[in-house]
């Protein structure tokens, strides 16, 4: 069927900010979809609140709206743009929920706008648990015994009758938010109560547990002519019970016979046909490992994280094809873009195996609850391709960047027996390392199977790795054994550890014996047809398919898995760098291992190597391709960390030299550079021991900012104001990483300012100066940033420009540089320089219109800023105000304190733009899902230090009609300032726990509409207030842990209302 001609203009809804459960995969899907629709001649209007995405680039859609994805704003855009249709199935759960809300509101009918892709009824049938179960019964497809509950009592009654354990899944929440497995009534009570609150329809599904079943997924597609196919099936390493987003996943299925595979394929196709989906759909099934019994667990009637994985695993671009299906094209009239010769009506055949491992944030959230269950906790994932499972797994492990170059971690190596067994039986993020360790210690695969229900075939793959370790150990520097180990994916580093020799020795032995990887093509068809897709993976085999180009090439290193502190922003900059390299006449080669992203779409670069980003893996590609050089500035810390070792081996690093990168990153060299350049910085020292450290505050004074050197996202950074806390911090830090120096700076309280600059060696272009809402002390990634700055004087700005230029030249920057300043009483200090693209590059690029990563890349390749059409210096500020606001995923991370501080905690960001700060802030809050009532109670739970500032805020809250709630100990001071307050705790109660519990109850009863909480910032009482914060997060009440954010909200509230003043 040809494409529809009755529609011309289509709105695509994006997925908004990155949160756990909804990450970069929707930037990939959305970008593909927009381009795909434009390719067919449609006008595309895009709405997404997330500026750190490729899809919000103006080249991707005809009109790009970076506005909150809320009924209010999307309706406005619809009224203005009057599209003929909306495509809501590519923006994750956010896009789908928005579509439902718009439809329910009636605006779609009013404006005559159609929904493409999936009918509303199908969305309901797939997402509403009750309707879903009824549909499955009609189809004769088994679903686990279950019940829909609206109260805790209903849940208890079901479990009483069906038996424990039971699984709780709240309806319409993403990533299984709020769900879990319950073994007894107490657990059930807690989880259901939370789940009901989190579900927008106050509904939970409660079902019998089928833990231990194989978890299998099918990615299916269907078109309007009822052609349906399976793009890929996948099998989880972990049996049912762990969210698929938190499971290690293999593609295709590995332990299913054809009979089992076809049985589940039939079920999946029957479901997509019945739902009538036109596009992509994901079906999750549970298969009994001991019979043909199976259950349908879940259906996602849209493009999902799994479909991004399936696209990268097979090469088949699901989102691109789904978008074309949505406008009426059928699978048998579209070409398979991978082969270019066959049709899209095709089920890919793989001749390799794919392993995906999630990337969890527990390296940063050490206190977080690491237990895995039905609630997804991973922030990102890596994928690796191999021709055996051992190879795919080991490549995936070393792609994670968690300090594991092999199937082992220091903690797993050193674990005692009790810990080992605990780590195996209660699945956490690092279970696979403990499984391997148990095998090393003589456990059998059968024993581990009994403890975990993990399939013996998978456990034997781990066993094989352990056996190879033993063979290596017993046969040092044996070439045949080396060959065998490389074939099964061992890294040189792992081998050198086992051989107890130098890494270089292993590398040399390989070179001397010609042991090197070849590269194979991902072609969807197992080589049955010719295909020229430039999408490669390495393996140890005979025939190399990747031929170096005769054109000049540049290698760009990507940023690996999404984690806190290194998000989708770096994929954005990577993709932009590639574009610029191509514009400059080179071929661009990308190496990356993140299946969710745009950069790993094979159509982005001239060549894509889907590989781990370790020195060894990068060197292999360089050996083959012989690029002009490597660009490391755009792949975050992942790429920057590779600069020095690559340089040491004589590989040209393009842009700022390694020596100069080091001058920005090494504390002592950096201090020296600042001193030489005459730029003030907070006084600070480096210490290597507890004793050294304790001497320092006497020289610089408390409070001090302490942190380990060379870290991402402020990890391990704290503000400390006394000796006891400092000692305790140092003791912890020395245990964590004994060889790393600790940096101790005087903590300057002031306005934090951030600048991204581009330098071509001759001139510096400063696209903009961003001012943070939160004062220094809150990590820049967790602060709200405003552009243009609202409070800085021209003089301060001039100083900032001056320092930026001095630093650019002084550190011989070639390319990008990010500088963070603190301004205190007109005095400007430099606190940090990152000699690379930073997380603010996409935001600043969008608001200034300067494609910064591209300009920087072309500067690196020799084209001056002036030749590119830009004037050096500070770029002229526009009339609009833009706010970048952080977005957090605290609802998914139990035991992680939502208190903001020097350590980064946010997972994503949104942008709000308008004609003034208040309106821009309003949008930023709306976009980040913080909805504040116009009236109600504001609860102040603050420390003594914050009283003075709080009084002013309280006064203003009262002025617009809010009631002010305070703790009993504070009431006198508030009343003294003339603010009438309600004391919510009694002064007679002195027990802190009791006070906290009273406040928690108040929050749970929803008596406070805004909560300001600044307790627990000091190290000695960091648990203080945590229950309050947890309660606020759980009840979805706006929680402000910084006085500055509270003031920002106040601006919005004041601006939103009318003045209510009595006559005087």
């Amino acid at each position, binding site marked *: 069927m040809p494409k529809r001609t009755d529609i011309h203009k289509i709105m695509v809804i994006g997925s908004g900010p990155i949160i756990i459960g909804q990450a970069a995969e929707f930037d990939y899907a959305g970008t593909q979809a927009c381009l795909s629709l434009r390719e067919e001649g449609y006008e595309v209007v895009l709405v997404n609140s997330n500026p750190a995405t490729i899809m919000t680039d103006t080249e991707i859609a005809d009109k790009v709206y970076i506005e909150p994805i809320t009924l209010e704003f999307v309706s406005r855009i619809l009224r203005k743009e009057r599209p003929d249709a909306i495509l809501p199935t590519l923006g994750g759960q956010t896009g789908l929920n928005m579509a439902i809300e718009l439809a329910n509101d009636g605006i779609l009918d009013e404006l005559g706008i159609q929904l493409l892709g999936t009918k509303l009824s199908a969305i309901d049938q797939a997402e509403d648990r009750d309707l879903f179960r009824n549909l499955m019964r009609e189809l004769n497809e088994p679903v686990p015994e279950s019940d829909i509950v609206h109260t805790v009592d209903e849940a208890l009654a079901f479990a009483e009758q069906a038996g424990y354990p039971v699984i709780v899944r709240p309806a319409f929440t993403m990533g299984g938010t709020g769900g879990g497995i319950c073994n007894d009534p107490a657990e059930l009570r807690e989880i259901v109560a939370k789940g009901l609150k989190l579900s927008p329809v106050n509904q939970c599904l409660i079902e019998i547990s089928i833990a231990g079943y194989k978890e299998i997924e099918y990615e299916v597609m269907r078109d309007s*002519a*009822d*052609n349906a*196919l399976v793009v890929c099936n996948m099998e989880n390493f972990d049996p049912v019970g762990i969210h698929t987003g938190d499971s290690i996943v293999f593609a*295709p*299925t*590995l*332990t*299913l*016979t*054809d*009979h089992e*595979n*076809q049985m589940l*394929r*039939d079920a999946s196709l029957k479901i997509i046909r019945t739902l009538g989906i036109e596009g992509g759909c994901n079906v999750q099934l549970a298969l009994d*490992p*001991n*019979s043909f019994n199976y259950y349908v667990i879940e259906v996602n009637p849209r493009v999902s994280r799994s479909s991004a994985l399936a696209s990268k695993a097979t090469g088949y671009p699901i989102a691109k094809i789904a978008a074309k299906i949505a406008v009426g094209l059928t*699978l*048998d009239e579209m070409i398979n873009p991978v082969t270019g*010769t*066959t*049709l899209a*009506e*095709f*089920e*890919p*055949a*793989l*001749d*390799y*195996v794919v392993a995906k491992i999630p990337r969890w944030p527990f390296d940063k959230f050490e206190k977080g609850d690491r237990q895995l269950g039905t609630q997804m906790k991973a922030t990102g994932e890596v994928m690796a391709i191999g*021709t*055996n*499972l051992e190879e795919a797994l080991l490549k995936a492990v070393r792609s994670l960047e968690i300090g594991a170059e092999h199937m082992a971690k220091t903690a797993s190596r050193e674990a005692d027996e009790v810990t080992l067994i605990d780590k195996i039986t209660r699945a956490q993020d690092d279970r696979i390392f403990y499984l391997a360790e148990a095998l090393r210690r003589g456990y059998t*695969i059968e024993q581990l199977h009994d403890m975990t229900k993990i*399939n*013996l*075939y998978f456990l*034997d793959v781990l*066993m*094989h790795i352990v056996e190879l370790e033993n063979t290596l150990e017993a046969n040092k520097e044996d070439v045949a054994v080396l060959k065998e180990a490389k*074939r099964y994916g061992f890294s040189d580093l792992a081998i050198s550890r086992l051989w107890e020799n130098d890494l270089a020795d292993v590398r040399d032995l390989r070179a001397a014996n010609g042991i090197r990887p070849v590269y*194979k093509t991902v072609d969807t*068809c*197992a*080589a*049955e*047809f*010719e295909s020229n897709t430039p999408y490669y993976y390495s393996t140890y*085999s*005979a*025939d190399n398919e990747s031929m170096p180009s005769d054109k000049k090439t540049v290698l760009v290193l990507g940023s690996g898995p999404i984690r806190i502190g290194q998000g989708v922003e770096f994929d954005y900059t990577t993709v932009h760098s590639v574009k610029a390299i191509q514009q400059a006449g080179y071929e661009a080669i990308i190496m990356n291992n993140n299946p969710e992203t745009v950069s790993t779409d094979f159509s982005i670069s001239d060549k894509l190597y889907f590989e781990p980003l370790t020195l060894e893996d990068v060197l292999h590609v360089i050996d083959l391709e012989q690029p002009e050089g490597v660009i490391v500035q755009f792949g975050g810390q992942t790429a920057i960390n590779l600069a020095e070792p690559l340089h040491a081996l004589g590989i040209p690093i393009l842009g700022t030299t390694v020596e100069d990168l080091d001058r920005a990153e090494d504390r002592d060299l950096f201090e020296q550079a600042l001193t030489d350049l005459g730029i003030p910085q907070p006084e600070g020292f480096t210490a290597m021991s507890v004793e050294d450290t304790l001497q320092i505050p006497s020289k610089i004074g408390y409070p001090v900012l302490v942190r380990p050197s060379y870290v991402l996202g402020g990890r391990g950074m704290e503000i400390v104001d006394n000796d006891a806390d400092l000692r305790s911090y140092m003791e912890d830090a020395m245990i964590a990483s004994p060889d790393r120096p600790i940096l101790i700076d005087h903590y300057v309280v002031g306005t934090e300012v951030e600048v991204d600059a581009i330098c071509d060696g001759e001139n510096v272009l400063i696209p903009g100066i961003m001012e943070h809402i939160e004062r220094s002390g809150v990590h820049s990634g967790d602060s709200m940033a405003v552009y243009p700055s609202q409070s800085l004087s021209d003089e301060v700005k001039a100083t900032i420009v001056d320092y930026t230029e001095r630093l650019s030249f002084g550190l011989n920057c070639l390319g990008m540089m990010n500088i963070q300043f603190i301004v205190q009483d007109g005095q400007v200090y430099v606190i940090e320089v990152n000699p690379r693209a930073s997380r603010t590059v996409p935001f600043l690029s969008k608001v200034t219109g300067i494609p910064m990563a591209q300009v920087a890349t072309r500067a690196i390749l020799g084209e001056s800023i002036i030749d590119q059409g830009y004037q050096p210096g500070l770029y002229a500020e526009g009339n609009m105000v833009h706010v970048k606001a952080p977005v957090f995923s605290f609802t998914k991370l139990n035991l992680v304190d939502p208190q903001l501080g020097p350590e980064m905690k946010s997972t994503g960001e949104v942008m709000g733009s308008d004609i003034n700060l208040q309106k821009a802030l309003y949008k930023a809050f709306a976009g980040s899902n913080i909805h504040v009532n116009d009236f109600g109670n504001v609860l102040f739970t603050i420390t003594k230090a914050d009283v003075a500032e709080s009084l002013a805020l309280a006064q203003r809250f009262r002025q617009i009609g809010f009631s002010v709630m305070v703790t009993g100990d504070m009431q006198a001071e508030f009343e003294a300032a003339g603010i009438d307050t309600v004391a919510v705790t009694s002064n007679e109660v002195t027990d802190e726990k009791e006070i906290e519990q009273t406040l928690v109850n108040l929050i749970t009863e929803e008596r406070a509409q805004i909560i300001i909480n600044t307790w627990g910032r000091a190290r000695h009482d960091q648990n203080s207030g945590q229950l309050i914060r947890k309660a606020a997060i759980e009840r979805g009440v706006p929680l402000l842990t910084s006085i500055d954010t509270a003031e920002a909200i106040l601006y919005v509230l004041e601006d939103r209302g009318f003045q209510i003043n009595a006559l005087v």
Partner: protein
Amino acid sequence: MEKILLLETGETFYGEAFGATKEVIGEVVFSTGMTGYQESLTDQSYNGQMLTFTFPLIGNYGVNADDFESVDPTVKAIICREVARFPSNWRSKMSLDEFLVEYDIPGIKHIDTRQLTKTIRSHGTMKASLLNEGTDIEAALATLRATDLPTNQVAQVSTKTRYVNPNAGKNVVVVDFGLKHSILRELNKRECNVTVVPYDTTAQEILRLAPDGVMLTNGPGDPTSIPEALDMINEIQGKIPLFGICLGHQLLCLANGGETFKMKFGHRGFNHPVREIATGRIDFTSQNHGYAVDADSLVHTDLEITHIEINDETVEGVRHKTLPAFSVQYHPDAAPGPHDADHLFDRFIELMDNNKNLEGTI
């Protein structure tokens, strides 16, 4: 133990032996199916062939007692990338290696199967030798080149005596050219009372069984090497409804004046999309054939093309314009592969029903 795959072109692939240890000569082909190795290697259409699996992990779920497609598999050899060390599935009775030893089928593993596949893709299917360590390659190549592969494959794999698979429904005579058990399973599911007869059974012998329908099965090799089947088909066609699968399809076409040709590297896998011309419906089909029917040759016959492969547009199905006879090049019986086309068995039942009704009215 080292094992060597020597191609007719002189190319060699050094790998490791598994399964039986003997040396063999055969035609080397590849299949892109990612599951179903047990069904494939017991499929008699692979008689005399060395089967390469493009999916690199084979043997993961072992070999079970249920998924056989024939009693005595005659595939010449198995070529794999990796063979599972520890098969795991609830129905598994033995490992792939044990199975191959038991049935005296040699295997080679740890070779670059993608490179081999590409070689076959560009040179076409070819003869090859599977050799043991230490064999004189030059001599082996000379032997290989001088060897003519047998053309009596159907005779080798067809049943020697007729047998019955009783049930209460329609009488179906299945002419066994190398049948897959799944054809019997599908007929059984539809309650057909099946009599399986040898490939060289005459029309008279078949008609004497008073069948409601006759099924022409799949089988190995070149359809033109069994001309005796054509006379049988011509005599039965018009009297009894006919349904041909794979080789059976090619024979139906030849009997009606069509021609077949040898394909460069054939269709072997489960992801071949086939369009039914009349409805536009597309099924993903299980395929295993090295010969195909020439579309042009059908122009002046009484057959019309009903199905085509959507990529290379080869003939995938025909029916007689006036008589109750139809056939498909692929396997609606699946096993291994998708069940998309199993409705064709229902069509066969309908055809028999209609034919009966027709007889009744006369």
